């Protein structure tokens, strides 16, 4: 079991979801996040004064998958989220110790779901 954490451009969310659905990966948590990488944020202007906002809007996806889904998931996220420019985001793959489904109490790879 792995936890895939992907940080992507907000406008690519739908494309990534579609690509993942092709590999039957439909369960995920998505959140609006702010972060910075090499893009280094943007500037805001108000009545002539300038403020640097060192954070950019991104979408964070957290997807728990079984081992045989890890490579397809990563591949489809990269394919769908890549624009080739700075700011495309990152994917982190973490080991996942345990997983419970609250409704049934199932554990392990069954609980992760389809």
């Amino acid at each position, binding site marked *: 079991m792995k936890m895939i954490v992907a940080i992507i451009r907000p*406008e690519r969310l739908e494309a990534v979801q579609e690509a993942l659905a092709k590999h039957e990966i439909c369960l995920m948590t998505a959140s609006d996040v*702010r972060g910075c990488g090499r893009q280094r944020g*943007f*500037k*805001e*202007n*108000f009545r002539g004064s*300038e*403020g*640097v*906002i*060192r*954070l950019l*809007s991104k979408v964070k996806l957290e997807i728990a998958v079984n081992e045989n889904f890890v490579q397809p998931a990563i591949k489809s996220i990269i394919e769908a989220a890549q624009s080739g420019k700075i700011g495309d985001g990152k994917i982190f793959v973490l080991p996942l110790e345990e997983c419970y489904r609250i409704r049934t109490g199932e554990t392990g790879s069954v609980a992760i779901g389809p």
Partner: protein
Amino acid sequence: MKLLSRLPEYDGGRLTFSARLSRLGVRLRDPEWRKYGMTLMLGKMLGLAILLLGILAFSLWLKSGHAYADPTPATPAVTQPATTQAAVPATPAPLTGTDIINPLNTVWTLIAAFLVFGMQVGFTMLEAGFCRSRETVNVLVECVFDTCLCGFLYYAWGYAFMFGAGNGFIGWHDPTANADGSFTSWFFLAGVKATSTYAATGVPVLAHWLFQFAFADCASTICSGTMIGRTAFWGDILYSVCVSGFIYPILGHWCWGPDGFLYTMGTPSTDGTWRFLSGMGMNFHDFAGSTVVHSIGGWIALAGGIWLGPRLGRKFKRDGGGPMLPHDLTIAVCGGLLLWFGWYGFNPGSTLSAMDYGGIGRVAANTTLAACTAGMAAVFVMYFRVGKWDAGSITNGFLAGLVAITCPCYWVSPAGACALGAIAGVIVIFAADLLEHLRIDDPVGAWPVHGVCGIWGTLSLGLFASGEYAAAGSSNTGIPAIDASNPALTGLFYGGGITVLKAQIIGSLIICGSTFVVAMTMFGVLNALKLLRISHDGELEGMDLHEHGISAYPEYVISALAAPHGMPRDTVNYTPPVLASEKVAGVVLK
């Protein structure tokens, strides 16, 4: 560089003010620098002299405008009775009719003008609410800029084009001749005298100008609704100049100008000048501007939407998508209601006469009823289709009813207003469907509401005109009497035949067609010059950040602007924190 290197403060161009001063001191001691300085000063002085000459010429020109306007200075005895009155305390002369009527009508017109100006708030809120938050600042700035620009252009030449007399296609001078038979030009409103009133209304020209400016501003703001989220700001400025400076005033002149060819059509002229369709026996009627304001705005909007193309990522219904979601329905619906409120200036104010009290009462009631039935019709159509009581549909629904009643409001009965409003509410939903089918992105629905229902409202007069109210519209002295010289306007459903309907169809067709052709050309040229649409990267970044440098809700992002900034870290008394891991390793981070 040799000179500069003498200064210890020089660090590659970035100097403090005091360093600049001392640099100036060094330079002034050097003859070569002094020569440069003198040359520079000479250039600046030349520029200043040219500027001063320009200002002088401009003020002289303004003065000459007034001299032209007022060729025979009024004798003090006529205009300035104050001194004589002080000397001889006589009883004041009894008030005559116009002493009461004109001020009353002027106050009414101005109240209406203020209400119509309030519609700008409504438009701005409606558009801001219906767009995404990433393009909200753009909507706000655009609407305000349009207003400012329109005000100036309407003063400079728009009003002269529209309400000046000239020929059937364009105007430029006061319709009332001066004493010596000459006409005063209205460009820059230079010839307007203290006592100038607009034609027979008795309303001062400047009050009439303000009222009509508010109308022109509505037309120009309507266009921006369809073009939200992808129009570059320079493109917006340029098309606004065309719309509020040329398209709206010139086409408006055709319908509302004192000698516009649609206004005078249908009757043979008495002085042998050309008249449009002089044998038809009916002229084109547009009481408050279903065609003039709303159709013109709506059809320009459609042309803009076609040339711009949809916003990035907009998928249409037939491609498995739908409209992009609005970001604040509270603002949008309240903006719509504010527009409704402003419409009480738009329609009843178009009588330009408070003396026609029957007229303003009827117009206000009709306006309300059409909006009520239209809102209900639209929301029910949507409910029967999708099973939800849709907020966007009811808002655009009642707006469609208001647009439709704008043209016929004076000549229909309350029952007719209810009927034509309800039909407008249905039409607007299907017009929006058509737009979706044609893959044209219209974030606020400006074309379905203003373009299509503007046409419907104009035509509906030919069907619903009830045959009880004077065809010539309101009078500035009272409720106009119906007689042979001023017949009533009767539509098809009230036994009047198709004469009115025919005139309305011809007028609407000519105005909408010309608007669309001119607007397509204008946007085509702007598009070819690459000024119309924002760059791809700019659109991805969002209109607000790219064009205006700020998001609409900057506090909602983790923002440097929200914090008390301009407070540098205390570097003198600062010791960096020592992390637990660093303590173990015995390393302190500098």
